[in-house]
C-alpha cells in the first residue's frame, strides 16, 4: 500500500465509524424494537385472533417474506411519492426494515410460543387464569427466553441489512463509504474497510448474544 492509500484508510476510518455509530446502529436498534413489537402482535394475531385479523396477519407475513427487501425499500421511498406519500430516507428505512423484522420475527415468536409445553397452559388455567393472563404471565416470559438466540441472529442480520438503506440515499455507514470512494477512487480499500467495521459490529453483538444466553440459562435447566 502506498502512503497515499494508508492515508486514505486512516482518514476515512473515523468518518465511517461515526456514520455507523450515528446511523447504522440507531437505525438497527429502532427498527428492531419496532419490528419486535410488530412480530409479537403478528404472532399472537395469527395464533389467537378473530379470523379476519388472522388473515390480515398471514397476508402481511406472506407479502414481506415473499418479496425482496430491496424492492420493498424502493417501493416505499421511490414508489409511494407517486401516490402523494413522500417520506424522507430515514423514516422510509425505519418502515421498511421494521416491516421485515416484524414478518420474520413473528415466525420466531410463534415457534417459541408453540414450543412451551401444554402443561404450562394447563397449570395456568387450573389456577383460574384467563388465556390473556396465562399468555402474559406464564407463556410469553418463557417464550421470550426460547426466542433470544434466533432473535439475536436476526438482529445481527439486520445490522448488516441496513447497508441496503444506502440505495435509498440514507447516509448510513455503507453510503458514507460510497461517498468516500467517489472522491478517492479506491473502491477495494474503502469497501474492505467498511466490511471490517461491519465485522467488528457483528462480533461484538455475537459476544453479547453468548453472554445473554448464558445469563438466561441460569434460570432453566433445559
Amino acid at each position, binding site marked *: 500500500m502506498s502512503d497515499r492509500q494508508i492515508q486514505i484508510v486512516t482518514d476515512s476510518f473515523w468518518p465511517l465509524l461515526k456514520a455507523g455509530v450515528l446511523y447504522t446502529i440507531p437505525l438497527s436498534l429502532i427498527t428492531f424494537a419496532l419490528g419486535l413489537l410488530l412480530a409479537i402482535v403478528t404472532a399472537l394475531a395469527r395464533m389467537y385472533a378473530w379470523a379476519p385479523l388472522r388473515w390480515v396477519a398471514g397476508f402481511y407475513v406472506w407479502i414481506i417474506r415473499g418479496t425482496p427487501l430491496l424492492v420493498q425499500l424502493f417501493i416505499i421511498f421511490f414508489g409511494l411519492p407517486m401516490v402523494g406519500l413522500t417520506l424522507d430516507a430515514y423514516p422510509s428505512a425505519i418502515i421498511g426494515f421494521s416491516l421485515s423484522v416484524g414478518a420474520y420475527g413473528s415466525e420466531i415468536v410463534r415457534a417459541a410460543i408453540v414450543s412451551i*409445553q401444554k*402443561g*404450562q397452559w*394447563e*397449570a395456568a*388455567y*387450573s*389456577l*383460574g*387464569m*384467563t388465556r390473556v*393472563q396465562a399468555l402474559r*404471565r*406464564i407463556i410469553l*416470559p*418463557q417464550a421470550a*427466553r426460547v426466542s433470544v438466540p434466533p432473535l439475536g441472529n436476526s438482529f445481527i442480520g439486520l445490522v448488516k441489512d441496513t447497508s441496503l438503506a444506502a440505495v435509498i440515499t440514507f447516509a448510513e455507514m455503507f453510503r458514507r463509504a460510497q461517498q468516500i470512494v467517489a472522491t478517492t477512487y479506491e473502491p477495494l480499500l474503502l469497501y474492505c474497510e467498511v466490511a471490517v467495521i461491519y465485522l467488528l459490529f457483528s462480533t461484538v453483538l455475537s459476544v453479547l448474544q453468548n453472554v445473554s444466553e448464558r445469563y438466561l440459562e441460569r*434460570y*432453566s*435447566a*433445559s
Partner: protein
Amino acid sequence: MIRVRGIRKAFGKQQVLRGVDFTLPAGQVLVIIGPSGSGKTTLLRCLNLLEVPDHGTLELGNVSFAFTPGAKLRPQDVLSLRKRTGMVFQSFNLFPHMTALGNVIEAQVTVQKKRKSEAEETARLLLGKVGLADRADYYPHKLSGGQQQRVAIARAMALEPEVLLFDEPTSALDPELAGEVLKVMKQLAAEGLTMVIVTHLMKFAEEVADHVLLMDEGLIVEEGPPHEVFRNPKSSRAAQFLSVLTD
C-alpha cells in the same frame, strides 16, 4: 361438595367416559383407581374443566354446569369453578421462570388480585406446610422431583380451593421421593381437605381414602369404602384388576 351426574366424554370416536356419577361430601378423600385408559384422569380433568364433558352435570359448591355437546360454557363460570379447585399434575408443571415462592404467589396476585405482600405471607405459610420454607427462593430446576411436587401442592392450595385434584402425583417420582409427597397428602387429608386423587398406589389409597372408585372402560365398576373395595370386591372385573395388582 362435588356432585357429578351422567358425565360422558368422547375424544373423536373414542368414548372415554360413558356415564359416571358420584358425590363427594366436603372434607372427604375420594381415590380413583383403575387400569390405564379406564378414563380416571379424564374424569379428574373434567372436574376443573380442563376437559369439557359432552353430557352430564357437575356441581361444586354453588357453581353448577349442565353439559350438552357443542354448547359453549360461560367463561366466567369456568374461571369461577377453577378458582374453587386446585390441581396437582403428574409432571408438576411448575412455572420454571419463577421461584418456588413466585409459583405460589402468582395466582393470588394475577387471579385473586391480592396485594403482593399478603400473597407472599400466604405463600410462605403454604411452603412451610409442605416442608419447604427453606427452599422458597429456589427455581424449580434446582429442586428435586419430590420438592417440585410439594411446591406444586402449595401452589394448588394458594387460592384456598374447596377441593384439591391430584392426577397421579407420584408417578413421575422414584419411591423415595414419592414418599415425601404422599406424607404431605396424608397430612392434608387428616386436616380435612376435600381431595380427589387418581393413583396407582393401592396401599396409599387404602390408608387415605374415605371412598374409592374403581373405573374400567369409562365406567365405575366398583365403589365403596376402601376396605370393602380392596378386600371384598363385588364385581368380577374389580377382583381381577386387584388380583393383578397384588401379584
